């Protein structure tokens, strides 16, 4: 097993910090990807942060009311060695999104 730290991500539009409202998970909890981890409040809105991955929560950073800067550790997971610490991100297979539509008269000669 390996540990992987998830830092507070950029929550958009240049926000540099967020305040912890309430933790929805505790150390020891097994979480699924996209399961809500924590309620955060920024200067613009309150939001619920979904887990970036599945794994066991080992540590959480920031008690309710405390402010965390973007990039600082927020939660530490224990994950199977498989994907722990690999470089880059694991891309998601999203449903394809398109803007272009094809139009053609196919002359089947």
């Amino acid at each position, binding site marked *: 097993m390996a540990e992987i730290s998830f830092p507070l991500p950029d929550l958009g539009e240049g926000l540099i910090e967020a305040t912890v409202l309430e933790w929805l998970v505790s150390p020891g909890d097994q979480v699924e990807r996209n399961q809500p981890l924590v309620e955060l409040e920024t200067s613009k809105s309150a939001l619920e942060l979904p887990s970036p991955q599945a794994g066991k929560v080992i540590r959480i950073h920031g008690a309710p009311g405390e402010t965390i800067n973007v990039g600082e550790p927020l939660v530490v997971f224990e994950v199977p*060695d*498989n*994907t722990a610490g*690999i*470089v*880059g*991100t*694991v*891309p998601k*297979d999203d449903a*394809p*999104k*398109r*803007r*272009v*539509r*094809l*139009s*053609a008269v*196919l002359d089947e000669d």
Partner: protein
Amino acid sequence: MSESTTATLEAAARNEQSVKLSMQQALNRALDEVLAADPKTVVFGEDCGQLGGVFRITDGLQAKHGETRVFDTPLAESGILGMSVGLAMAGFHPIPEVQFDGFAYPAINQIVCQIARMNYRSRGKLPMPITLRVPSFGGIRAPEHHGESLEALFAHVPGLKVVSPSDPHDAYHLLKYAATRPDPVIFMEPKSRYWQKGDVDTADGGTLTGARIVRPGRHLTLVAWGAMVARCLQVAELAAEDGIDVEVLDLRWLKPIDAEALATSVGKTRRAVVVHEAPLTSGLGAEVAQLITQNCFDTLKAPVERVTGFDVPYPSGDLEDEYIPNIDRILLGIQRVLEYRRG
């Protein structure tokens, strides 16, 4: 044993042969089996031992096969590849890893001047059965030199063969195939596809040489390899919504290129778009386009289109999606081909 019992058992055996694996797991299993089958096989590179490689492709192999078969090297790509030459000369089948595409550059001298030529230089006395695994291509928002597509560079070097799987099944079988060849093979693993699972029929790899039709179609052939195959399959589904029946050809072998498969497919569809992540100019798409033109000139309805990365250094993660051919750019490439009318 009754006939029906036999049939049931065979079916069960078949089921066991078909397993759901990620490409990472499929490659790991292939290496495991190659190491078990051939005592002359050695797997090594930076962090390949205890860590199992930066992408965990060699995970657990050192523990299972021992430190003489699977080992870490100092951090020097030229050293890793130069050492591979010597090991091959000593009768081994090296399967070295460079951690990322861009790190093949420091080893270019050993790859181009030594590995590719030793068989030739020695008049066939010193074959180089080296399978160089290179996690390749982009799409994972990694640092600089971690998202490059070097296939054209490698394919241009006489004496090298180049292959890139696009799914776990092919990854498993192509790696086993490459690792048992007597010639050097650059094995380009699409690192953005390491973690997606797919069915792997471990018993039946099918034909492992040449290209593979991954989706048949009537109106146009999309030619791709590596991570772009999955994207082209998505594009084909979208095109179908618009009444365009797209054939997707996974080239697989980037050297030698399966010119016959290209000719057969485009001979039927009469239109072709080639898609790759590498920069446009002198990319492998140019070679593909030429082979198609050479063989299908009379029946082609439009010039072969290329949808590729740009002639720029591979950009940072934030711009990656702008650089790598996306669904809309591929659709626009298809549209240009469909709209083309002669003179």
